[in-house]
């Protein structure tokens, strides 16, 4: 536990020091929000949630790539891959909460007649899904540019694809559209249930995949045996 916390604290410090990146990430959801603020209030909520997801998964992507160099050394100095990946996730989740709270407050102040609780739920799920999603991309794609392009594609598709289309359920942020409909258009609870199920499933599966990818990459190789000193 201590080891996970040490990794989490260090990862948080690293994230916070990338000031310019942080500022861009913080402003990105705002741009999304304002883009539809004038004509379609409800749409601006959907967009700001996607913006939070995009910002956090981008941050996770960069954090994951930056850690590649030092992780083998940390593994050798006594960390398990689980310590490393959970520590980093904790740090990203913390940043994600910090990122979404101001936007939730903005919606509270700026919007009327929506289900605030459901919006809070979207944001919580967004943070839970976006962090492992970005880390997973960094584990699979060695270069940041490729990961960024994939993220761009996913978020773009998420915006343009009809949520009713079955194929769009394969996108990681689909739940935000579904629960969004429930929160904004006051539809029946089916939307909430479907969204919640998909969101939780993605959060769990992505987290497990990140843990597995890290365990494979930082595995103890079979040719090397440590004998007690």
């Amino acid at each position, binding site marked *: 536990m201590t080891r996970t916390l040490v*990794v989490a604290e260090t990862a948080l410090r690293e994230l916070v020091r990338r000031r310019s990146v942080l500022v861009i990430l913080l402003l990105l959801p705002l741009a999304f929000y304002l883009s539809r603020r004038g004509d379609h209030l409800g749409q601006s909520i959907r967009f700001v949630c996607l913006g939070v997801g995009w910002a956090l998964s981008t941050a996770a992507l960069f954090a994951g790539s930056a*850690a590649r160099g*030092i992780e083998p*050394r940390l593994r050798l*100095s006594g960390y398990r891959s689980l310590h490393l990946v959970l520590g980093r996730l904790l740090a990203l989740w913390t940043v994600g909460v910090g990122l979404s709270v101001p936007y939730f407050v903005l919606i509270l102040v700026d919007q009327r007649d929506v289900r605030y609780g459901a919006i809070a739920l979207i944001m919580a799920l967004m943070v839970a899904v976006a962090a492992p999603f970005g880390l997973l991309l960094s584990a699979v794609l060695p270069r940041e540019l490729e990961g960024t392009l994939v993220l761009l594609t996913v978020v773009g598709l998420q915006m343009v694809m009809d949520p009713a289309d079955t194929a769009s359920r394969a996108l990681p942020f689909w739940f935000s559209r579904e629960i969004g409909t429930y929160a904004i258009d006051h539809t029946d609870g089916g939307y909430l249930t479907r969204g919640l199920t998909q969101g939780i499933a993605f959060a769990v599966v992505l987290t497990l995949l990140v843990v597995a990818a890290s365990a494979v990459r930082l595995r103890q*190789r079979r040719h*090397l045996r*440590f004998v007690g000193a």
Partner: protein
Amino acid sequence: MNHNAWLAALTGELRRHGVGPDLTGHVVAEAATHLTESGEHPLRVFGPPDAYARAVADSLGGPDRRPPHRRPGPVRLAAQGITKRYRGRTVLDRVDLTVRAGEIAAVVGANGSGKSTFLRICAGLVSPDAGTVRVHGALGYCPQDGGTAEFLDADEHFALVGGGRGLTRDTARRAGRAGAAALDWSPPAGTQARHLSGGTRQKLNLVLARLGEPEVLLLDEPYQGFDRGTYLDFWHEVWRWRDAGKAIVVVTHLLNQLDRVDLVLDLTTPRERAA
């Protein structure tokens, strides 16, 4: 420079030139006596401290290399039959290396002869096509570059790597700063690794490998970017670690260091040697 400052500088330079602590004491005391009796300025009588230290070291026929009674300890690292191929080319062909506690092994060879690959296999970062590595105790690894985090300062590195070894933040920081001091470096608080020079970053890298006193140290040309003084400090430290019973493997291309080590593993293939 007054007498005391000159004598202090001489002490440091003698150490850097590999003169043992006992002899250093004698040389410094004798110089102090001479200065007291003659009343002359040290720079006039002895010249600059580093030049005089070099003259003393030369008169000994080189640095005081190994303590007189050393028995090699138990085996710490045993690599057997290590074979590695890259794109159909055999880089390492059934390489064996056994290093005991209190021994330094140098891995030498031409560029591309697989020195770093061999070390990475020993560290378990790369899998070989055949062969095994047994390590008794903990492993410290200093990569050729990388191995540090751009946005963290030295103390945070110490805390992070030390945390893996089970050290508290304070213990890790103290151990890290002591290791840095031995390389004539006192890490400025708050300076992130990305703002350090290449040589200084390598010092950090080396100190990190040593945190928590692992029994086996794998060093991949860790002295790149070091100035001459730090380079001497580095070897002095390596000898000290050896005398403390560590098993050390150093990748090097500098053949003039080979007389200071216990084992040499030459990865140059016979074919290359003939060419």
